[in-house]
């Protein structure tokens, strides 16, 4: 923990506001001559749960991937505690990534390793070359990984090979991996787009619980409107790489949503209808999914 703090504390604090987690300043991403994200300026306070919505290709994914630098911005700044993370390199970049965990639509787990090793890869940043190459994880880390899995109701699968799990289970393992990173920020890129409604609910509940119980800032790309309304404090709408809506969930009128989704509006609303089990417009009580005791027994 100490190493991680020092990287960011040493830098010159140009933005001293304590409660601001991330500040986007005219962040832009171009692929050749095509603009994916254009001139995005936002301030995300500590502990907020943010949902980014928009039709596919609106730049949500690129925006998220730029935050933990899986994609490099072409222009603009991204400030975290006064440090422009858009310019980090080498060890500092890796430290930032480990502080800013990511959950993917396709889980991006290592299918041929067992579940607990996959979770422990979240600790890799704290390991030296040899111990990482030889998979030497301490008993404390192993216990921590099991606790993380237990929070998501997945401890009973710890020794299974990961590609034998279902999609929903894999996504929960991926969240456990994010948890053992002990990050300040959790990014989720379409975390429920390839899941069935029941697993989607489990995953979204878990993200919400991490946000409220652990105080992590969660930024989540979502395709369906109702999910965003049900779980997020704040909704950001994107269209053609630009932010076209930024406000609380209740401020998002159907008209505004139609503008964000454009031609895909029908689809987005319909998906919303079929997934009313996710809670509709009422916010569900954020709880961690309970471990499947029966399955363990």
């Amino acid at each position, binding site marked *: *923990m100490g190493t991680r703090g020092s990287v960011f504390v040493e830098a010159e604090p140009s933005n001293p506001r304590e409660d601001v987690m991330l500040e986007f300043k005219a962040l832009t991403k171009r692929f050749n001559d095509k603009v994916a994200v254009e001139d995005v300026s936002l301030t995300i306070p500590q502990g907020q749960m943010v949902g980014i919505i928009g039709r596919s290709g609106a730049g949500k994914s690129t925006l998220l991937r730029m935050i933990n630098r899986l994609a490099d911005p072409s222009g603009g700044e991204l400030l975290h505690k006064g440090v422009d993370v858009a310019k980090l390199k080498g060890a500092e970049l890796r430290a930032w990534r480990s502080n800013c965990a990511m959950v993917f639509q396709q889980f991006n787990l290592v299918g041929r390793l067992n579940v*607990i090793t996959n979770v422990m890869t979240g*600790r890799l940043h704290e390991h030296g070359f040899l111990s990482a190459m030889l998979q030497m994880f301490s*008993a*404390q*880390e*192993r*216990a*921590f*990984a*099991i*606790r*993380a899995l237990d*929070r998501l109701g997945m*401890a009973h699968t*710890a*020794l299974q090979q990961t590609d034998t799990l279902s999609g929903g289970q894999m996504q929960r393992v991926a969240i456990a991996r994010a*948890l*053992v990173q*002990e990050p300040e920020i959790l990014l989720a890129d379409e975390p429920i787009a390839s899941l069935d409604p029941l697993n989607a609910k489990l995953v979204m509940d878990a993200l919400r619980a991490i946000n409220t*119980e*652990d*105080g992590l800032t969660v930024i989540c790309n979502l395709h369906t409107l109702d999910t965003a309304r049900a779980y997020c404090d704040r909704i950001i709408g994107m269209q053609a790489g630009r932010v076209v809506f930024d406000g609380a969930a209740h401020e998002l009128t159907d008209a505004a949503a139609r503008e964000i989704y454009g031609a895909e509006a029908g689809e987005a609303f319909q998906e919303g209808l079929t997934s009313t089990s996710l809670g509709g417009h009422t916010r569900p009580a954020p709880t961690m999914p309970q471990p499947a005791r029966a399955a363990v027994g």
Partner: protein
Amino acid sequence: MRTFSLAAVGPAEIQAARAQNPKAFGDPLRRALVIGSWAVIGAYLAYSLWLFEFYKLFQASDNALRMITRMFVWQDMDTWMYDQIYVGIAQTIAMAFLGTLLATILALFIAFAAARNTMPMWLPRQATRRVLDVLRGVDQVIWGLVFVRAVGLGPLAGVLAIFVSDTGTLAKLYSEAIENIDKKQVEGVRSTGADGARTIRFGIIPQILPVFISLSLYSFESSTRSATILGLVGAGGVGMVIIERFRAGLFDQVAFVVINVLVVIALIDWISSKIRRRFIGERGH
């Protein structure tokens, strides 16, 4: 602030987690197995390198250095007898071509005797296959050496060596291609009322011909590579040029010849792949 952190995992929690999931803390049997197998590999390597007198590698620096410098410093390039080099390369290609062609012709007949669907009788099929195994099992260079002894130094021995070993390889691959033909197409042709010869002509040949051509072209490519080596045992081609000049200590010329051979082989691969595509289309082998 944070309640869920690594630091919060004390000895008690570790104990509890270990009780809940003992195997997650490392299976001692597995660990012993992994360490054990690495130790075995390490010990084997140490033993075999000692057996092969590995230290000689460090004593040999003088000779090696002289040779390597000679390979990169080319001298008296006008006295290199280029005609001999290029005749050697041409001979290598010719040997590969003739050997593969003869092997293709013979393998065409043998293959039908080694395929299950064209030779239903067990004994002749197995006998054919075992003979083919022996032809393939003896390396081409060994065949080269044997034929040099039998018919004397020169390209004839090389052609024969390529012929014999390619017959073994091609006949086996051809017979597999024959076994893999699609029965439905044959039945389709037969259902139009075609007699035996027409069934073979329109039902079987269109299926196997592209595969056969492709396999023979591949075999030609690989024979050009191996024909280079055949010269080292005296079976003609550029290999004889290489070994003569190597024995004479003309390392710069050896390096030059090898580079030429590599270029020619790359060229042949390229041409052969073009022809393959021309005849068989993209899906070819």
